[in-house]
């Protein structure tokens, strides 16, 4: 499986990372080196093996479905690059 420039462009967009056109060939080459390394996994017989979901056998704890946190909008917004009137501000999303 070889990654071409078109695929590299698509992956960069899916990852929401802007990659300049002139950097795409190098990126595709890097992907190919890493994926070539990963290809080794095809040698392993995984017939009948369940994919691991949890490394230690544990049952997720349950708790009451109640509010345990909140009422701190200033703290939540304190690190925002742009916060106005108690909200996160972003560029216009809908026309």
């Amino acid at each position, binding site marked *: 499986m070889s*990654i071409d420039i078109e*695929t*590299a462009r698509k*992956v*960069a*967009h*899916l*990852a*929401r*990372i*802007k*990659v300049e056109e002139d950097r795409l060939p190098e*990126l595709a080459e*890097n*992907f190919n*080196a*890493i*994926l070539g*390394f*990963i*290809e*080794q*996994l*095809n*040698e*392993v017989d*995984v017939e009948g*093996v*369940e*994919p*691991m*979901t*949890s*490394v*230690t056998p*544990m049952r*997720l*704890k349950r*708790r009451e479905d109640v509010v345990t946190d909140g009422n*701190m909008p200033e*703290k*939540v917004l*304190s*690190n*925002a*690059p*742009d916060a106005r009137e108690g909200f*996160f501000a*972003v*560029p*216009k*999303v809908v026309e």
Partner: protein
Amino acid sequence: MADLNKLTIADARDAMRKGDLTSAELTDACLSEIEGAGALGAFVHNTPDLARDQAKAADDRIKAGDAPDMCGIPLGIKDLFCTKGVASQAGSRILEGFIPEYESTVSQNLLDNGTVMLGKLNMDEFAMGSSNETSVYGNAVNPWKIDDRQLTPGGSSGGSASAVAADLCLAATGTDTGGSIRQPAAFTGITGIKPTYGRCSRWGVVAFASSLDQAGPMTKSVRDAAIMLEAMCGHDAKDSTSADLPVPNFEAMLTGDIKGKKIGLPKEYRMDGMPDEIEALWSNGADMLRDAGAEVIDISLPHTKYALPAYYVIAPAEASSNLARYDGVRYGHRAKLGQGDGITEMYEKTRAEGFGDEVQRRVMVGTYVLSAGFYDAYYNRARKVRALIKKDFDDVFAQGIDAILTPATPSAAFGLGEMENADPVKMYLNDVFTVTVNLAGLPGIAVPAGLDAQGLPLGLQLIGRPWEEGDLLNIAHEVEARAGFVAKPQKWW
């Protein structure tokens, strides 16, 4: 007392309890060492005022009696831990200016035990790297040096390793996703333990690969690792994968008796082209354990070869998901937008400016292996191989093996910049002996065990049964005692 900063946790604790030493004196000694150690690039955010206040409070607590073991001990904290009111950037530009409103559970546990925070420590960006060369702060440098060649302290906990090895602090926190505590510990001649997955809460620790990440201590001795680990771990309702198990007194388990313990030597770790020095270190380690009355047994972990490729599917996949939160909306860096730029451009520009090359690469690899059509071929297959890797360990433990001895790294520390033009996979090979342990969720410890021909430290790794950190530390303590590693780097910084 001279050279207070060189003390171990255990010795400082005993001296403070006896009244021979105060935390204020100890903290001042460390702060002045840090001031003169800028060339190491280890500390990246210093908190001297906070440290002095905490030291004073610790001294009061010790005077009142019944203080915890860690009370008054000055530590460095890896930049990956969120610390309330103190910059926490995970070594990344994208978290520039981020000042958490909360404290990570592990660092809070330490504070509850009365520790002193000297500052935050350098690391590879988002803990992705094995040389501390991907940090926005610049390189951390190994205090060990040959001629004029500057060496890597390893990564990702490179600042932690450098700071502890150079005696800038008594100990430091680290985190380990594929070897990020154990490899830098080995490169700098210190001890580092990654506990069983679930021992330390991950809450408030910037996430890289959530099914693999674990925090642990980096210290000057195995005893110190035992003392500090106990203070760091414990159940936390805020991390759903945190284990609800009692935390034993690990230090009390350092009995010095390992007679009859069964130690496995996995044949798959004897790799082609392994340097003779590593081979010799490993067999010396086995001899030490035999001399201590342990039984050394050849074992097989047949899927070892596939651990790194499985890791380089699973870790980037989880990273691509975890790092999706850095979008320029809620915290950290936001790119300056051009005329007509919408929200998509904001995301794409912010992430391109905020993430370094290696992080971008891994996020994109993760995105690819999770994308429609490849999920089964890559991600699910890697999770199946992971299950087989864990089963290899389960099988040898079922045969009665108590711990497994391996080299910690395939080489001693390499020069900064030497891997710059290598293909990224070459850097990944640094973690070949450590990454299996994360995939299987096991505890692993690196202990300094010798010097190579150039005079650089080399470490051995011991891998334990799940939740048996106490037993593992006891075996490691025996290796430490018999190896008698006392070498220290010559001060040049």
